[in-house]
């Protein structure tokens, strides 16, 4: 139960001259629910995007389930990985996007079925069964044959979660899943994520600005600043007795915006 | 022998070199037809765009129909119409002029659309803002709307100039001796079509590449002064 599933080993990521992740060391254990908080531009999304293989890294090694994500071993040395390796590694990862990124030309059902059929090789029948279960879980059984534009933002994001789950990933990444939503729709989505966290041993890595929610669901909270983990610990400790000055300032600004 | 130049069929290379000046003579006609045709299209299109904007259906609807009609019928037929029908009513134009008018008529349909789209793209709010400031309508149009529309209009017109250039060979059917016609005549006389026709193709490629480069440069040079295009 204490196996490490995700590990960043001195990872550096640059955009041009700008260093987003600086010698980042960071770990997530199997089944752990980790929340990343931190100021805008601190590299939170970048961490997730690196893990999802959407952004390559410049230095260091990322491990997923003990295997290097961005590298392959050749003659005892680590070399940059090819597409085949990345595809294999991606099988254990799934992502929920801030802007949902549903496929607009497919119905909700097809959004859920397409990848399992084409990528995992499931039969349409199996994939459909899986889709029905997931839609029931996110409470959208009756919306299956609508197109994404016909749904509310909250409903779309729940489809986004179901779509990622349909691939049965080991790690699910959430990049601010509720920040594109109208305030009254946030609750439904958070409820689904919370249910997921409580009922499954799925490993979850979540970037959010919903501090109460982070406190409720996480096993651990990481405060990111300027591309490194500034402070991490159990939610109670981080929120009640932050040790680091910057963590304190950040939490104060977020929790008491009017002072 | 054409335009006083003889050709040399001793080798492919010599042939190509010897007919180049002849083709260039044709190219001059091509360019002249392009420029004149473009001028007519630009003016006629502007007239259509204005008539179309007249808030009187008796004027705007027929204009819309005419523009659509010009756009949807082939240049070749329009050219034949002008070439054969106008003389029956006593209007006898030289072939070159008839050809340029046909090009102008065909492309006026496209240019009028360019003007319309260019003016419409200028945010409606700009007109309203100007009225709110109590500026007179003429001032609004000349000082506010036009300067913002022109940077959109010019490049689009430039692209039609290039299209017109590529349509000039159609004029050869009414005896205009433009570049393709020259090549065809050389071919008919020497039974060598490959070299002159390929050369015309290559010259066209050079002309269009050059022209699109010029249009792009013009586009970049135009003072857009912070006007958000697109």
């Amino acid at each position, binding site marked *: 139960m204490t196996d490490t599933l995700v590990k960043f080993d001195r990872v550096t990521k640059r955009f041009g001259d700008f260093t987003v992740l600086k010698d980042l060391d960071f770990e997530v254990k199997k089944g752990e629910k980790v929340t990343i908080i931190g100021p805008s531009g601190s590299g939170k999304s970048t961490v997730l995007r690196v893990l999802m293989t959407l952004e390559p890294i410049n230095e260091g090694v990322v491990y997923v389930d003990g295997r290097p994500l961005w590298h392959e071993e050749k003659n005892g040395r680590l070399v940059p990985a090819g597409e085949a390796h990345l595809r294999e590694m991606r099988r254990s990862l799934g992502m929920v996007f801030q802007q949902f990124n549903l496929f607009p030309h497919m119905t909700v059902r097809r959004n859920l079925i397409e990848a399992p059929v084409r990528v995992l090789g499931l039969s349409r029948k199996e994939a459909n069964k899986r889709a029905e279960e997931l839609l029931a879980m996110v409470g959208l059984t009756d919306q299956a044959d609508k197109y994404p534009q*016909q749904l509310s933002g909250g409903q779309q994001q729940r489809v986004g979660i179901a779509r990622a789950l349909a691939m049965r990933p080991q790690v699910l990444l959430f990049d601010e899943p509720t920040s594109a939503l109208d305030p009254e729709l946030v609750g439904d989505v958070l409820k689904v994520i919370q249910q997921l966290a409580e009922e499954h041993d799925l490993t979850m890595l979540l970037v959010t600005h919903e501090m109460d929610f982070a406190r409720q669901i996480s096993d651990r909270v990481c405060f990111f600043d300027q591309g490194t983990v500034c402070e991490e610990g159990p939610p109670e400790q981080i929120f009640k007795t932050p040790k680091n000055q910057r963590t304190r300032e950040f939490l104060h600004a977020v929790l008491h915006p009017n002072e | 022998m054409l335009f006083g130049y003889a050709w040399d069929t001793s080798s492919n290379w010599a042939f190509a070199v010897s007919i180049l000046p002849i083709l260039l003579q044709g190219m001059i006609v091509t360019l002249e037809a392009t420029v004149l045709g473009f001028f007519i299209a630009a003016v006629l299109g502007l007239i259509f765009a204005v008539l179309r904007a007249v808030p009187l259906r008796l004027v705007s609807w027929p204009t819309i129909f005419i523009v659509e009609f010009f756009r949807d019928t082939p240049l070749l037929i329009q050219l034949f119409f002008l070439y054969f029908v106008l003389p029956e009513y006593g209007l006898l134009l030289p072939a070159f002029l008839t050809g340029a008018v046909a090009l102008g008529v065909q492309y006026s349909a496209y240019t009028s659309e360019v003007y319309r789209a260019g003016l419409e793209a200028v945010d409606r709010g700009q007109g309203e803002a100007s009225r709110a400031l109590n500026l007179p309508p003429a001032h609004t149009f000349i000082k506010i709307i036009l300067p913002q529309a022109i940077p959109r209009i010019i490049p689009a017109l430039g692209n039609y100039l290039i299209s017109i250039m590529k349509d000039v060979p159609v004029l050869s059917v009414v005896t205009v001796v433009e570049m393709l016609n020259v090549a065809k005549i050389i071919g008919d006389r020497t039974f060598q079509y490959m070299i002159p026709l390929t050369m015309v193709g290559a010259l066209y490629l050079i002309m269009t590449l050059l022209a699109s480069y010029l249009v792009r440069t013009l586009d970049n040079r135009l003072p857009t002064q912070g006007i958000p295009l697109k």
Partner: protein
Amino acid sequence: MWDYLPALMQGAWITLELTFWSTLAGAFCSFFFGLGRGSRNLLLKSVSVAYIEVFRGTSLLVQMFWIFFALPLMGVRMSPMTAGILALSLNIGAYGAEVVRGAIQSVIRSQYEAAKALNFTPRQALWFIALPQALPEMLPPFGNLIIQNLKDTALVSLITLSDLAFRAESLRNLTQDSTTIYTLVLFMYFGMALMLTAIMKLLERRVGRWRGTGAR
């Protein structure tokens, strides 16, 4: 006037046939070279770029004459119909290829990222995610190209195909009744263009069904 109609109608039928086949072959060229241009295969990419530049950069009539007069001297013989369709479709295909490329480029990056996160291969992402979304984007410019193609078919009369334009010219030679004949022919082309526009509008409505389907 009614005496001219049978001959002109036959010509119009040839015109429609030419438009149909060259549009079909042109659509194939559009997709093949439009996708080829974005390919990672360097050979396919350079062939596509060269094709697009050459056929957009030169005049259709030059291309037609080249295929009809120059190619036979190299031993490539074909009927006027084949030559006409070949020239028209290669020409329209080059413009169509740019439409295809532009439409695919207009698919936003986050769609590719979502596809990647679901582990689609780049090719699957292109075929199942990007292309279907690009298709409605392509239809209006394709509609314009089809009208362009219809008008361009008139040029095949110059390589002896007896289409509508050709019939008109022969009738004029015979009767010298230019006004009636050419007015008639202009309206026949206009009618065909309106018909094609209507068909394309229907198609647009069907293909873009998933777009703008009601408010939230």
